[in-house]
């Protein structure tokens, strides 16, 4: 393997989506960036948004020759607010690689949650593409989206988002009900035991603590054995110890089961543990993914 590094001045602007101007690791469009890091590998030049992506590439260049498990390509999300156009995402392009732990960080209103919704097919982009394993999925029919959400993704939200009239157990097995799959009570019981919820499963959400509710939500997210967990501020409403427990469970899922984990967070401590940090500002990915660190320092 031969990798050489060279820092260049800004390249002339090119059309978004042109692979020549994409960071192969994080997937962002480099056509408007001030500086680009270039690496040559096997006689081919690769461009990166900064040292971080370049280093990751050098660690495992073979990985980045494949297709990312998730890719957003020149994604726009625009809301019509009484005639005024509000651009929440502005040409967002990112790559998520299989088995990675990715943290999306940024100030409030920067578009983090919208990005997560786009990744999980919870929202429709105004334009651009969402690619799942190289397949464009943002425009597939609703039934197919539902199938993908059921089989591929598991969601964990800051507000837990449990169904209030169902018990903890019923909330946990709900994804299997919608997927019309059989429920293995023994397996479910084992998982419940594992997260310390035994004896609490017949309670309804309002009878559970925040930490218990989030554990229920986590078990629900894992119920259909998804490839990707998308978590939006999963510890945002929890105290530090409970939050750390939940985070440990999520990271275990990533490290031990080699599943992809994408977390939207404000917490630098969480972000630091990620393989890749995507920093967002005004609906775009900022060039240096670690820019956010100066805000948290």
């Amino acid at each position, binding site marked *: 393997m031969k990798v050489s590094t060279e820092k260049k001045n800004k390249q002339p602007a090119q059309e978004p989506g042109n692979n020549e101007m994409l960071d192969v690791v994080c997937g962002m469009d480099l056509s408007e960036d001030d500086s680009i890091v270039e690496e040559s590998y096997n006689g081919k030049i690769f461009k990166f948004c900064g040292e971080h992506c370049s280093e990751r590439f050098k660690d495992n260049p073979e990985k980045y020759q494949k297709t990312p498990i998730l890719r957003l390509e020149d994604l726009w999300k625009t809301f019509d607010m009484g005639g005024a156009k509000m651009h929440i995402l502005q040409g967002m392009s990112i790559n998520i690689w299989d088995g990675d732990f990715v943290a999306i960080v940024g100030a409030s209103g920067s578009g983090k949650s919208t990005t997560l919704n786009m990744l999980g097919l*919870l*929202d429709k982009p105004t334009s651009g593409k969402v690619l799942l394993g190289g397949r464009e999925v943002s425009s597939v029919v609703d*039934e197919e989206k*539902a199938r993908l959400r059921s089989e591929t993704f598991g969601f964990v939200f800051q507000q837990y988002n449990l169904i209030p*009239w*169902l018990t903890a157990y019923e909330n946990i097995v709900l*994804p299997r*009900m919608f997927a019309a799959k059989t429920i293995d009570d023994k397996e479910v019981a084992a998982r419940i035991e594992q997260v310390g919820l035994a004896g609490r499963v017949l309670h309804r959400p309002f009878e559970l603590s925040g930490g218990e509710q989030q554990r229920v939500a986590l078990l629900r997210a894992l119920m259909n054995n998804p490839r990707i967990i998308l978590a939006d501020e999963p510890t945002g409403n929890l105290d530090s110890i409970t939050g750390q427990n939940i985070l440990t469970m999520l990271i275990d899922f990533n490290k031990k089961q080699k599943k992809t984990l994408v977390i939207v967070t404000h917490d630098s401590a969480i972000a630091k543990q990620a393989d890749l940090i995507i920093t967002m500002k005004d609906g775009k990915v900022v060039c240096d993914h670690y820019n956010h660190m100066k805000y948290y320092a």
Partner: protein
Amino acid sequence: MLKNFIFLILKSIRHRPIRSWLTVLGVIIGVMVVVTIMSLGTGIQNVISKQLNQFGNDLIIIFPGKLTESMAGFIGGMRFRDADLLNLKKIPGITTIALADIATFTVEFQGEKKSNTTHGMTWAGTKEIFEQSQGFKLAAGDFPRDDNVPEAVVGDYVANEMFKKKMGVGDEVIIKSKRFKIIGILGKTGNKEDDSSVFMSLNNQRMLTGNYAGVMMAMVRVDPRYDKEIIAEEIKFELSKQSVVEDFTVITPAKIARLAGDLLSVVELFLITLALVSLAVGAVGIMNTMYTAILERTKHIGIMKAIGASSLSILLLFLIEAGVIGIIGGLMGIAFGILLSFLLSLGFASLGVQGMFSFASLDYLGFATVLIVTFITGIVSGILPARQAAKMEPAEALRYE
């Protein structure tokens, strides 16, 4: 899958008990009205048919005034001459003619006074008409034999309920200072008016009213071998020759049946319209509840979609919920409708109208149809809100607070 859906729907309905029951109540009222109309409709037909049989299917009634203004004829005091009516006996096929007059008097019995309708009639023809055509049975005593003796026959209500003391054969009542001996008591006829009447001879009534000039009406009994419609035409022809009562009505049982049928159709049409309006109100209730339910559960729809529920699943969840509300409301509406019909029939019975309701004559197939219609109404009412819920993007629904 369907089992899971039903489970989720029942849980959801139980989560909002008051709202759910209010919607069910809307459907119950709609269905109850329909079922009551269906149940009593059959009863009304039975009662009318019974009344018509009691009226006698071999009788022709003659009274002054046009059919559409019959009350005006009576109130206006138009009266036929006895001779003109008795002259009709020459028409072949007529076996009996009974002249009749109606008046209202205060009847005194053992110091208690009550206002009563009295029927004055020529006994000779009346006895035959009462017993053979109208099926009136004497519960006690006999019919008078002499038109000039002050005797009277009373209805069941007059004898047993109208006065504090029960009346018996041989008792006396005082009408306009004249004593009348009760010679017979009629059995219950099922007709409140007949049961509350006092029957006396035409001569006696004329003596009480002081009006000897003619009669209000006549009942004509026809030999069953003759066509009543033809005889009615002949009666009209004969009566057209007299000039005392120019506008008169000759009515046959078939004509009464037709009139009653027409009346019943109008009443039924009105009641069915009322029932449909009630059902429509129920449907709007379901729609309103479903819309509110969607607003309330917008976020939950988002959650369900996020964890894999398809638009079709959400659509089905809401449609089945609307249908379940329709079915529960329908079943309870049928039960309450039957109960209401039963209670109403008891009320009618206390007013003297018997046989309005019977379990045997309930239209169970009709009820099943009502139930299916209610279920479909529920589903149709739920379609719009359910479609709206199903179309929502999960993120849009999740943002809803």
